[in-house]
């Protein structure tokens, strides 16, 4: 009991810290990537390459004046951001980041709370999180906010169907509802080089389902091209028009937290969770190699004439990367870190896709959005589900 | 062996063609309907070949239909030798006539409807034949009645067709009423309607010398038979039923349905065996009908009417045979009659078709050039019906007459023989008027298509050979012990009567046609009497119909309907409802919350009763 409690507390602390940092820096990454997509430089001033920008932002938000519109419904106005952020943060707790590992003589899973209906939990939380936005839009007593709230609730309800439906297909392959079970079911390789991830898994690879899932996920998190609730050129800033300072930050955080959650879920459901791309033992050394490569690149870059200070910062980064490489090379730590590395890289890739698409695609029109959801995405998910079920029923031995 | 498949095929055909008959192309309708009948025919053949020889009846219990108190009526089908004969006749002749109808109805409208009705008829007829208990038989009985109604009234745009249909239906009601009473008495008597169990129950009972329960039952059943098989006094519907299309007349009003009565009597023969009095009455009625109808047939000018009356009189023959205890003879005549009478009607239909609707003998004549096949086949049929030696009719009619000859009352034989002579005469009269002499009509006669003539030929073959080669009495011997008649005498006599009739007809209508008119004028009053069918219809109209309509107009309509029901019940109820509503509307405040409160109160009451009552 006590061991369980302690370990759980430690895990919570770890995950929370990492998660928060991720959120903060995800936003920095987004700005950087967008900038480079648009051939700008992005944040530079605060710290080397704007690395301290997130801290600055947090500081700014904290010190801003906290406005409250006069005719707003106080209670709900205050409740909304709370709901949004708390629900967004809670759903990370059932995601497994790695296999069962032994610490201090005990055994534990690399997740905060394993739930054998984890998927349903995620769905439930996602379903509830509509209220944050809807209430925010309604309570701030502003027509733009209301429109934003209505839009987002309608949008979220509509996209929940394909989202849920397409989730079912990998569940059929894995034959369980718990994330850990799903992750375990994707272990191993075909012919020792094709991983048994859901997107490759027989009898019915889920590539199509993965795409549908990603699209629905974009809509669920109100990201471009589905960010109608906060379409600035139509409704100022949508449901959080009236929010400022920390409450605004809550919504902001919530959005990014949802992104991360979706990425993690996608990784677990479709991309084989923490299972590496290459069979062991090679996979254990991939992280070190990656970091060494990064270090080399940084050293080479520092040679060129870059911006002022680069010739100092780049080597430092390089050294840091080397340090990581060394850490990842320690066999004792590998058991813990390598799975996390793989998981993180997959999730990171998905997050990058998010930003990438934001940088490339224009926004939908609202009717197009709904039309797309009901007449295209929903049937697609349905067909995918039917085909999967059929194949699983026909070739049960393949599973 | 699944017996239920046999009636199922036509039912499916009926459903398909009846539901989408309008949309389907004619060819598809043909395939469905004729195919379904052909399927059941094939099933029958397969079945019989499987269980041949049918020494013990094959029975199957499909499901329990009615279960009330001690009475348990199942959907039971069974096949014994009698059923086998009927099955073959019904499906075989039915198949031929379906084929024929393709040609005959080709120009008519309501094509799909016609075939749908025909298939429905086949279904009910097969049900009737296969039924193992009297109630199921009754279902088929009523069903065929319904189909007959529908098909007689097929040209419902003409008034006479509708009237004829109504007449057929209503007259049958009278018979069916008796039939139903008989069934009820049977239930009271035996607490079952299953043939087998009734038979075993009857075995124990003594033969009734005087009028007993069995006699009454059998007589009531016979009333039903009279209605269905057009015996005196209920025969009147059959001649009018000719208003329907000719294939219908052939299938329903000659070959199959009208013989249902005969079949039924033969089916419950074990009852009749114990009621000699009833049997005597059956014989008398049959004989009387035979004579009566034959005499009317002498003076008819509508070709179908002639054959209709001959049907009535032939049915009379069958009942004569049954009444004399020669069931096998009756059934035998039933079969041969099915062949040659169907042939007669189909031939007549072919003539009518060729003359595009002309039915009056006076506008025919000299058609043997125009339609040779019809000419030959119809001739065969006529010979067969008039008992010309070694044709089918000869054997069966002889079997009956022989039974009469050796029965307690030989005078029946002489009357029957004379009737045979008359039959031969009027059938050939019609035949000669149709095919000989010179053409008196104004249409352009032409031979019918092969699809119509083919059935004619097949039936012609049977009309010749059925008597000699399909000897029903031997086949039915295990069920109905056949009385071995020694002397050739009755055979010779009846045959000579028949031939005499033929010769007379030849004399009057071929050799010296002028003679016929002089005979007609000589027998003036009698002729008119016959031509007007003894004024029976008028009699019925005066005695029964008029008073009925009068009563219903005055008492029932004005008095009961308008007075009692309309003002009393309908409006009265309305007023009561209004008054109640005046009271109830106080509660109906339209306020949802009040209604909810009432619901709450009611549910509380329920909880009181249940929750506290249970404990």
């Amino acid at each position: 009991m006590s061991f369980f409690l302690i370990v759980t507390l430690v895990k919570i602390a770890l995950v929370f810290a990492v998660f928060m940092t991720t959120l903060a820096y995800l936003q920095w990454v987004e700005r950087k990537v967008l900038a480079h997509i648009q051939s700008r430089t992005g944040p530079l001033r605060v710290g080397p390459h704007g690395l301290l920008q997130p801290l600055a932002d947090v500081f700014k938000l904290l010190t801003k004046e906290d406005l409250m519109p006069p005719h707003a419904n106080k209670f709900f106005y205050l409740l909304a951001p709370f709901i949004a952020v708390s629900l967004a943060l809670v759903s990370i707790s059932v995601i497994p980041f790695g296999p069962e590992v032994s610490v201090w003589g005990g055994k534990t899973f690399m997740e905060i709370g394993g739930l054998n209906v984890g998927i349903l939990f995620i769905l439930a939380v996602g379903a509830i999180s509509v209220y944050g936005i809807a209430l925010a839009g309604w309570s701030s007593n502003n027509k733009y906010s209301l429109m934003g709230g209505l839009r987002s609730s309608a949008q979220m309800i509509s996209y929940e169907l394909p989202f849920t439906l397409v989730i079912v297909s990998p569940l059929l392959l894995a034959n369980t509802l718990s994330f850990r079970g799903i992750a375990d079911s994707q272990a191993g390789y075909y012919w020792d080089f094709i991983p048994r991830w859901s997107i490759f898994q027989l009898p019915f690879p889920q590539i199509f389902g993965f795409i549908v899932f990603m699209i629905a996920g974009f809509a669920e998190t109100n990201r471009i091209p589905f960010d109608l609730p906060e379409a600035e050129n139509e409704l100022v800033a949508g449901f959080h028009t009236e929010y400022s300072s920390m409450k605004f930050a809550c919504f902001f955080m919530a959005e990014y937290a949802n992104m991360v959650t979706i990425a993690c879920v996608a990784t677990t459901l479709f991309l084989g969770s923490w299972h590496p791309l290459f069979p062991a033992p090679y996979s254990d050394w991939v992280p070190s190699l990656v970091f060494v490569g990064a270090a080399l690149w940084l050293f080479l870059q520092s040679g060129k004439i870059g911006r002022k200070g680069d010739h100092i910062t780049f080597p430092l980064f390089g050294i840091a990367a080397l340090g990581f490489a060394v850490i990842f090379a320690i066999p004792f730590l590998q058991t813990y870190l390598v799975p996390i590395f793989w998981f993180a890289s997959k999730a990171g890739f998905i997050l990058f896709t998010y930003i990438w698409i934001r940088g490339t695609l224009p926004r939908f029109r609202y009717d197009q959005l709904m039309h797309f959801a009901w007449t295209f995405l929903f049937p697609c998910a349905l067909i995918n589900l039917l085909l999967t079920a059929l194949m699983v029923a026909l070739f049960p031995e393949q599973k | 062996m699944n017996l239920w498949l046999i009636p199922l095929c036509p039912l499916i055909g009926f459903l398909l063609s009846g539901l989408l008959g309008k949309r389907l192309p004619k060819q598809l309708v043909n395939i469905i309907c004729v195919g379904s009948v052909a399927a059941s025919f094939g099933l029958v053949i397969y079945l019989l070949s499987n269980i041949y020889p049918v020494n013990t009846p094959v029975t199957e219990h499909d499901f329990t239909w009615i279960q009330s108190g001690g009475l348990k009526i199942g959907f039971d089908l069974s096949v014994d030798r009698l059923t086998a004969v009927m099955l073959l006749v019904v499906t075989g002749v039915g198949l031929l006539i379906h084929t024929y109808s393709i040609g005959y109805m080709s120009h008519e409208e309501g094509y799909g409807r016609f075939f749908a009705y025909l298939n429905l008829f086949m279904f009910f007829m097969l049900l009737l034949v296969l039924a193992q208990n009297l109630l199921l038989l009754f279902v088929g009985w009523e069903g065929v009645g319904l189909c007959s109604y529908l098909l007689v009234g097929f040209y419902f745009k003409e008034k006479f067709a509708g009237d004829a249909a109504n007449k057929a239906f209503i007259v049958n009601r009278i018979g069916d009423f008796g039939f139903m009473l008989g069934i009820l008495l049977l239930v009271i008597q035996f607490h079952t309607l299953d043939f087998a169990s009734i038979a075993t129950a009857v075995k124990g009972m003594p033969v009734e010398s005087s009028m007993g329960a069995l006699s009454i039952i059998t007589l009531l059943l016979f009333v039903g038979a009279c209605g269905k098989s057009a015996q005196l006094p209920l025969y009147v519907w059959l001649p009018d039923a000719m208003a329907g299309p000719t294939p219908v007349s052939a299938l329903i009003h000659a070959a199959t349905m009208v013989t249902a009565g005969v079949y039924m009597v033969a089916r419950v023969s074990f009852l009749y065996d114990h009621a000699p009095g009833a049997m005597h009455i059956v014989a008398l009625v049959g004989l009387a009908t035979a004579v009566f109808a034959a005499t009317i047939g002498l003076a008819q000018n509508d070709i179908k009417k002639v054959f209709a009356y001959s049907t009535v009189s032939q049915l009379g023959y069958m009942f004569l045979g049954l009444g004399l205890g020669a069931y096998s003879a009756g059934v035998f005549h039933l079969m041969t009659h099915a062949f040659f009478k169907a042939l007669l009607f189909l031939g007549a239909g072919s003539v009518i078709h060729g003359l595009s609707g002309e039915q009056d003998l006076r506008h025919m004549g000299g058609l043997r050039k125009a339609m040779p096949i019809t000419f030959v086949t119809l001739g065969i049929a006529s010979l067969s019906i008039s008992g010309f030696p070694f044709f089918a009719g000869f054997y069966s009619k002889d079997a009956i007459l022989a039974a009469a000859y050796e029965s307690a009352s030989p005078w029946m034989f002489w009357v029957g023989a004379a009737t045979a002579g008359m039959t031969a005469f009027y059938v050939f009269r019609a035949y000669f008027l149709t095919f000989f002499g010179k053409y008196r009509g104004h249409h352009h006669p032409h031979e019918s298509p092969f699809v119509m003539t083919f059935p004619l030929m097949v039936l012609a073959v049977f009309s010749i050979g059925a008597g000699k080669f399909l000897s029903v009495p031997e086949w039915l011997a295990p069920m109905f012990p056949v009385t071995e008649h020694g002397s050739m005498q009755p055979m010779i006599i009846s045959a000579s009567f028949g031939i005499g009739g033929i010769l007379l007809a030849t004399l009057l209508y071929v050799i010296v046609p002028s003679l016929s008119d002089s005979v007609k004028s000589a027998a003036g009053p009698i002729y008119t009497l016959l031509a007007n069918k003894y004024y029976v219809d008028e009699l019925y109209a005066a005695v029964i119909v008029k008073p009925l309509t009068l009563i219903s107009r005055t008492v029932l309509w004005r008095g009961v309907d308008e007075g009692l029901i309309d003002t009393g019940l309908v409006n009265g109820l309305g007023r009561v409802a209004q008054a109640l509503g005046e009271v109830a509307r106080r509660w109906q405040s339209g306020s949802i919350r009040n209604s909810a409160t009432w619901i709450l109160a009611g549910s509380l009451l329920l909880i009181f009763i249940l929750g506290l009552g249970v404990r």
Partner: protein
Amino acid sequence: MDSILFIIAAVAAIGCGLNLVLQKHPISSALSLIGVMSSLALLYLLLGAEFIAMAQMIVYGGAVMVLFIFVIMLLNAGAEKRSDKSLFAQIAGFPLLAVLVVLLAFLIRETPFPSKISQVQFGSWVPGGSAEAIGMQLFSKFLYPFEVVSVLILIAILGAVVLARKEID
């Protein structure tokens, strides 16, 4: 441990229920109803009905109540006004209600529960209402009801679409 959780959930449920009845504004009622549902979901978890708990959150919390809130926002339904109509409900409502509560309490008290199985202990019933067990039942024993319900839902969708169309009047 269990009893603490139970008491928390129960108090939350009753409090939210009361709030539903007492609040004047529809949206407050809706929010409190959501509260009731969430606490009921927790209770379901205590009763080993994890699937039902999640379904409760997804179906009720995620779909039904969102619809409610959506409609409330769409119609911009304000706080409700007093009305002097339906007096019967005003007068007879409360006594009947009291009778109902008393009656139910009485029945519950009087019903004999076999003591050993009538004790709820968290996690004592495995697998309990796991998704697998429910699915098994649903597709074997309750197949026909299931199919019928699916048809029902289809009809409901059509009905909703037809009713909520613009040009209806």
